[in-house]
């Protein structure tokens, strides 16, 4: 594993994912969240949300570095990795939709597609920046 390349790629991805999350979850999907019957915490700790997002990015990129080698570290590999990894938590949102009352179809779509896009973005950055 090339730690120097990995750390640079991780920092770039973490920053881009924060920007993406802000645009998608704090702006674009805010109305969908308000219209759903789910109650949101009035005192959401943004620092905890950011920290969680950074940890998720770190885990994703560690997994990419460990498993991406067989297909060669390049854009196509990162993109495929991000697309496939993103679809697994998408199913998690399907479970939420099926199990939780008030988890409306629009909230399901917003969260599933929003988080999928975040994984695809991380995959693209990984594919472009990480090499051994």
């Amino acid at each position, binding site marked *: 594993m090339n730690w120097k390349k990995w750390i640079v790629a991780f920092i770039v991805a973490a920053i881009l994912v924060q920007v993406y999350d802000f645009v998608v979850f704090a702006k674009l999907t805010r109305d969908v969240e308000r219209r759903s019957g*789910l*109650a*949101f*915490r*009035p005192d*959401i*700790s943004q620092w*905890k*949300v950011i920290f*969680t997002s950074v*940890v*998720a990015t770190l*885990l*994703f990129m*560690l*997994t990419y570095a*460990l*498993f*991406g*080698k*067989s*297909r060669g570290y390049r854009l196509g590999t990162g993109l*495929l*990795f991000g697309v*496939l*990894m993103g*679809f*697994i*938590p998408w*199913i*998690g*949102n*399907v*479970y*939420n939709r*099926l*199990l*939780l*009352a008030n988890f409306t179809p629009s909230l399901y779509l917003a969260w599933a597609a929003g*988080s999928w896009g975040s994984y695809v973005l991380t995959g693209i950055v990984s594919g472009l920046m990480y090499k051994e």
Partner: protein
Amino acid sequence: MNANRLLLSIVVLSVVANGYDFLVHNVLLKATYQAHQDLLNVPQRLGLLIFADIVWVILFCWFYAAFARGRGFRLSTGLWFGFFVGLIAGWMPQVYSRLVLAGFPIAFYISWGVSNLVRSLLLGAVIGRLYHER
């Protein structure tokens, strides 16, 4: 990619995943769900939950077959794969739910986070034993 082994893995993992979910959600967590019935859809759409499990397994197996070759198709590779997928796609979403949803009980966060991680590890172990390209 070994199509026969992939298909076999999908069938076996689908059975294991649904059996595991039945045990966890219908037996072990029954009391937790009864205590929080107001948060849940009643009745549960069992057929769709089983179908969602199968789709999850297809993605998991396809992902493993596409990316695990570099580490060698073996038990330890499957376990590591399951561990990371379990953390990223199983545990982290529960952390988000706990952070932003007001009524999301800690019992759901812990039980869903842990059961998702264990399920992913279990499925990683099974595919690590079952799938190879020979």
